[in-house]
């Protein structure tokens, strides 16, 4: 039963990711990207990573995909901008991609990975849920990296605001200096 569900969700994941890169309309691409993230979060649930599955839904579907959708709708893109040299790089690209794909397949086939979970000492310790365990590690061992990722998010936010800010003429704005020193 589980293997059937795995085949179902991974099939939908692969098909929708193919549709992301081939569909003409960018809005359809964003919607298929959301479907991809949804299915991969279900696959995370199979791997006992509940916290990451929910975070994937919140961060990707709730923030990143909506951001993509905003930008796609905000920019006035012509849907069918057919150009002549569209397929210039495609044969070389397909060649490189399939070489990489078959190399991966060969490596996975010949690897010495034990394909199932070893029943080791940590398996009995499953009374605590995944979120609790992640929090125990994240706020102790990886505390510096956690704060560093916060700084990276802050820098990205300031950068995005600074990039898209522009000064226009004729906008009614508050002069803060005059506002503060008003009698």
């Amino acid at each position, binding site marked *: 039963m589980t293997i059937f569900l795995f085949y179902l969700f991974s099939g939908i994941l692969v098909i929708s*990711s193919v549709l992301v890169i081939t569909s003409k309309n960018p809005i359809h691409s964003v919607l298929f990207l959301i479907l991809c993230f949804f299915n991969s979060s279900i696959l995370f649930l199979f791997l*006992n*990573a509940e916290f990451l599955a929910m975070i994937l839904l919140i*961060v*990707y579907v709730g923030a990143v995909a909506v951001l993509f959708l905003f930008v796609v709708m905000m*920019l006035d893109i012509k849907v069918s901008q057919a*150009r002549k040299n569209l397929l210039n790089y495609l044969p070389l690209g397909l060649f*490189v991609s399939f070489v990489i794909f078959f190399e991966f397949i060969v490596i996975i086939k010949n690897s010495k990975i034990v*394909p199932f979970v070893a029943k080791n000492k940590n398996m009995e310790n499953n009374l605590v849920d995944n979120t609790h365990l992640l929090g125990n590690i994240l706020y102790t061992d990886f505390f510096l990296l956690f704060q560093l990722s916060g700084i*990276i998010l802050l820098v990205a936010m300031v950068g995005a605001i600074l990039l898209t800010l522009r000064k226009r003429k004729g906008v009614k704005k508050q002069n803060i200096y005059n506002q503060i020193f008003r009698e």
Partner: protein
Amino acid sequence: MDIPITYYLYLSTSIFTIGLVGIFLNRKNLIILLMSIELIFLSSNINFVAFSHLYQDLVGQIFVFFVLTITAAEAAVGLAIIVIFFRIKDSIHIDDIDSLKE
């Protein structure tokens, strides 16, 4: 859960290849190129979580957490760059990004 890890590895390899083909295939739209990069990130995340489950080690999931952070930051900055590029050139066609040539 009796799914072998190699299935997850095949799945993430296929998604990685689809993202890579998407970068080469898509010469018209910069936003779809960013989406292909998101697909590649997703495949690496599936790999990390699968191995984290295989070895019963939570550090892989911590790494996926940080990858998610970096991906969100990258999407925000990349889309801001696309917006100002559209404002300057009135198109987001990839072949129009040649301002540094002359």
